[in-house]
């Protein structure tokens, strides 16, 4: 590999690592926010289990991305085959629905219950949409307390639709960041010309540079400001755009030397 090729590769790798780290820094709190919203919404409708289910691969299968409740950890290990269960239907049809007497024999949920030791009796499921696309399903199972459980009501279905809108935005951001990470990992592992250990060392060094740390700090400051309200967000955006504009006009002069 020539010096130029190595330099080009380094630039590409630097860009990938920076993208991955910024994406991680910005989206790490997303999973927490999704779980918090799941907890709040589940409490609002007196439900015991709440989960976010998203697409898994291209064959239409689904997986549990986030879950809260008694069997949350077990659910996160499960996959839902294409078109199976209420979640599968809601994902493909886009129609919210609630159902009681779910765990009858020979159903998908009977199989899941066997694995989790749980008894699914009543479900409320609603699609998660982003820009017109269905990106997942928001599902609530059973009530808090002892069975028999009251069915989920029409009003609860409408209430959950509002939570779904907020959760869908977070899920979309999380899934986009995950795509970035997966793509970065693939690109890193696909390059056979550099030895893996060398590359790890190089990435480690890159992450320890002040330039890289400052970029992550900057991303975190922007995130912090954006969360403080509309006025702060607008002001931050305005200032950063002005800096960019100014920087564009001073291409040949160092910013700090002015």
């Amino acid at each position, binding site marked *: 590999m020539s010096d130029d090729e190595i330099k080009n590769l380094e630039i590409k790798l630097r860009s990938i690592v920076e993208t991955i780290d910024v994406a991680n820094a910005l989206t790490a709190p997303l999973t927490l926010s999704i779980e918090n919203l799941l907890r709040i919404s589940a409490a609002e409708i007196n439900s015991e289990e709440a989960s976010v289910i998203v697409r898994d691969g291209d064959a239409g299968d689904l997986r549990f991305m986030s879950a809260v409740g008694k069997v949350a950890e077990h659910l996160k290990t499960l996959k839902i085959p294409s078109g199976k269960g209420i979640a599968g239907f809601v994902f493909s049809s886009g129609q919210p629905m609630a*159902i009681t*007497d*779910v765990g009858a024999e020979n159903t998908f949920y009977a199989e899941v219950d066997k694995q989790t030791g749980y008894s699914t009796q009543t479900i409320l499921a609603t699609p998660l949409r982003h820009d017109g696309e269905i990106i997942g399903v928001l599902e609530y199972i059973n009530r808090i307390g002892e069975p028999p459980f009251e069915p989920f009501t029409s009003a609860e279905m409408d209430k959950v639709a509002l939570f779904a809108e907020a959760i869908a935005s977070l899920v979309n951001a999380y899934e986009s960041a995950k795509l970035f990470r997966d793509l970065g990992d693939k690109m890193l592992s696909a390059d056979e010309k550099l030895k893996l250990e060398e590359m790890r060392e190089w990435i480690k060094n890159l992450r320890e540079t002040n330039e890289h740390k400052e970029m992550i700090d900057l991303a975190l400051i922007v995130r912090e400001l954006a969360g403080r309200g509309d006025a702060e967000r607008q002001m931050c955006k305005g200032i950063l755009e002005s800096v960019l504009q100014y920087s564009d006009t001073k291409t040949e002069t160092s910013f700090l030397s002015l």
Partner: protein
Amino acid sequence: MTTVSAYESNEHSSISMYFQIDDGWKLRTGKGVSVAVIDSGIDTSHTDLQGKVKESVEAGADNKRVVFDKSDTGDSAGHGTACAGIISRIAPDAEFYSIKVLGAGGLGDGIAFLAGLEYAIKQRYQIINLSLGTTKPQFFAPLHDLLDRAYQSGCIVVAAANNLPQPSFPSVFSSSLISVSKHEDADPFNFGFRYGEVIELTAPGVNIHTAWLNNSYKSLTGNSFACPHIVGIIALLLEKYPELTPFQVKSALYAIAQENLDKNKVKTADQSNPSE
């Protein structure tokens, strides 16, 4: 007897009679009326539906085209069976045609859904149950075109609203189809009409006990299950008055819903003043 008016009456105008329908339609069974259910298929072996499904087809891909072939795969989710079960309880002698577009392998949801609607219109089924919808903007124009074709062909399309903040298609196309959302009342004949609203009709859609997979029954809630109630009602109307156009059916539903509203008001007044 229900008088279907040509226009809304108020203090400035008088009612102009459009046509009249007698209450005999409520005693009909939907005999001979063709009903297409575009959904996840229908379980034809369910006790409630045995012998009622005249044909089942399923969407498949053939060189980038969607084709419909005879299907014996039944229902992949239970939803189509649930919808057919609701229609069958109101109109037990209606003829069912299952058009399976959900769970049909390898096809994008919206593409199969559109193709299923086009297939139903070509077959000229009298009523089309669409307890599905899409919010994808790219399907707005083609769905609009199909709905107009259905209207011109005399096919009555009944679509479920979604109860999400975003509008879903085709339920928001109020001119050329009948759109339905759920209400709590369980009486299928006591449906409502919300004149001027995007989703005009309301029908039972809460805790509806209906057919499901493996010859079972479930209690279901959702606009999906309000839609087939109105389909069942229209099947009764069409058996009695087979010449009604989609516009006339919608006008009749409006007039009947107005009567329902008046009856409900009297009932409420009686309950609050029992001594009178």
